[in-house]
């Protein structure tokens, strides 16, 4: 039995560099200098049992790549992913296949995730057929019906023989969630699971995911660009920028006291359904830069309102504890690093 106090998932120094494809001529003229997209560049975090960790950031921040690396749908360039203390890289194919039963995934687009020629019952039963071959067909069907009920598709017998095109978008995502649950996984990697659903249906899916977590003792890695959604469902949250985590902490800490200037800008930019609301932080200049040649030093420095020349453009900041908090870490020279005396808005004033 694994130690219940140990984190379920431990990710250490994860890196994924994709080689940039070049044309024939460029290869000929520019030999030996292979460029890389540094999609994920040194990411470490832990997820405790029955916890929801949010991974938030803009497009191109590398958050989805982290999800795929955790599931080992991609091989990392460097770094390790441990599930219950077992390094996934150390497993042979058969062992990895068995471990996959414990890690399931829910992607954004349910229509693309479901085979149009498989009925709902077949789709949900399929992973059980692969991972739990000891189940008889009758036992398998009973289990599918039970899961259908758990995700709110009642009466389950009615939906069992339906095809994906015969049900609504929100119901399809419930089927994808049901299919992820059938193997009784420990970890669910949910990559923008509600982004495609209608606004009035998103709330239902979120409530469902929260309820299932309690019922099935699930642990989620919840990947999203939507901070308001993350705030609602997550216990802790990690903010990514250009392949790195710039801030991580409990939802209370990070949302109430965002510390990294990027986190502050991101939170402030989220549109709030209240016309009296005014932004609290200035918007950063420009857009997220190209991850092929990320900026030197702190990757946020060219857009940062408090960046100091000679420091932020030179040295790479490490994640360090935010003063006065227990779990919150941020990677900023002026906020958590050695140059806090240079911060135009001193930490002490903000807390």
């Amino acid at each position: 039995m694994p130690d219940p106090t140990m984190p379920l998932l431990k990710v250490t120094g994860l890196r994924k560099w994709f080689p940039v494809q070049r044309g024939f001529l460029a290869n000929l003229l520019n030999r030996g200098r292979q460029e890389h997209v540094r999609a994920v560049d040194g990411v470490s975090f832990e997820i405790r049992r029955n916890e929801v960790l949010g991974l938030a950031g803009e497009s191109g921040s590398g958050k989805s790549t982290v999800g795929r690396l955790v599931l080992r749908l991609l091989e990392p360039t460097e770094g390790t992913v441990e599930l219950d203390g077992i390094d996934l890289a150390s497993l042979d194919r058969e062992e990895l296949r068995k471990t996959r039963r414990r890690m399931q995934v829910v992607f954004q687009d349910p229509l693309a995730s479901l085979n149009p020629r498989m009925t709902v019952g077949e789709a949900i039963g399929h992973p059980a057929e692969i991972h739990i071959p000891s189940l008889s067909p009758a036992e398998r069907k009973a289990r599918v019906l039970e899961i259908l009920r758990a995700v709110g598709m009642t009466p389950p017998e009615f939906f069992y023989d339906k095809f994906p095109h015969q049900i609504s978008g929100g119901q399809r995502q419930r089927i994808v969630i049901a299919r992820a649950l059938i193997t009784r996984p420990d970890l669910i990697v949910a990559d923008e699971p509600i982004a495609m659903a209608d606004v009035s249906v998103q709330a239902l899916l979120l409530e469902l995911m929260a309820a299932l977590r309690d019922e099935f003792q699930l642990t989620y890695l919840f990947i999203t660009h939507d901070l308001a959604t993350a705030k609602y469902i997550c216990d802790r949250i990690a903010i990514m920028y250009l392949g790195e985590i710039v801030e991580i902490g409990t939802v209370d800490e990070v949302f109430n006291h965002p510390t990294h200037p990027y986190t502050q800008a991101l939170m402030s930019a989220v549109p709030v359904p209240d016309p009296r609301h005014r932004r609290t932080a200035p918007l950063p200049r420009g857009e997220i830069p190209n991850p092929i040649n990320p900026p030197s030093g702190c990757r946020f420095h060219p857009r940062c309102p408090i960046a100091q020349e000679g420091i932020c453009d030179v040295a790479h900041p490490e994640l360090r504890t935010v003063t006065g908090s227990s779990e919150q870490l941020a990677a900023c020279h002026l906020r958590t690093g050695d140059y806090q005396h240079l911060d135009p808005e001193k930490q002490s004033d903000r807390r």
Partner: protein
Amino acid sequence: MTEPVFSIRNLFVEYATRDGDVVAVDDVSLDIRKGEILGLVGESGCGKTTLGKAMLRMIQPPGRISGGEMWFGGRDLMTLTEREMQTLRGRRLSMVFQDPMTSLNPLEKIVDHIVETVMTHEPGVTEAAARDRAKDLATRLGILENRIDDYPHQFSGGMRQRVMIALALALNADVVIADEPTTALDVIVEAQFLDLLRELRDEFNLTIVIITHNIGVVAEVADRVAVMYAGRMAEVGEVGEFFGDTRHPYSQGLLKSVPNIDMAEQHLYTMTGSPPSLLRPPPACRFHPRCPHAMVCCTTEQPRFAEVGSDHSAACWLYLEHPNKHPLERVDA
């Protein structure tokens, strides 16, 4: 400030499908005022994009505008010939789409898009003059001058969306209809773009209709809000009145079910069911099967618009007289 620049009266848009006719816009009336930003909100399939396209008479077969009037510049657009419509489109009425990449020619430089637009619509303008105007506009919209000779693929999503706005402004359009202009953008770029829209409105006295599913975007940028549900207008109001005193049960549900980064809600409100198919919409008030306040009259008669504030109206029987306002006995499945 309050005179309508564009008036829609009892507009109907229908699509012929294999399974029958779909009424995507069903008896919609709406005034758009000069110099305002109107937020048109609703979920996918509610008809908001169809309404936006209908305003430019850009509905393609198998769809058609099957009834109603649209008054702009003293004329009913429904009476214009296609050629007259073409000179109006782009020149005085302009549309910006969600995905700018599909609206830009990948083989043409950014500057040439603007030059071509100007020279097509204003034949008297020389190429040099058009080029100067393109440069001015690009600078005004935060596009660096040395980048206007780039191609669309070299631009990021936010910059492409700025180019689309530049195209609309190049001809001094009076009304710009922007369909989900920020949906493909990240939050920070979205916020930058919304700021830009507000500045342009102030500077050029531009009238902007922003079509979106994001109620937060509306609160951020709009002066007035129009909510659509299942092809019909549900509620229209000044932004402060709308958010401060939301009246239509659908709008109320929509606002309560969206997670708000500024609030610490433990549970989200969940609306029952999902938006109806327009092939077989519910009779009378289309929201009644999902409405927590449904009454008998809601199932028999479509409500008119009721004045619920000084600049605020809602199509709901709660605010109207009717002899049969008994609560509806629901038979739950």
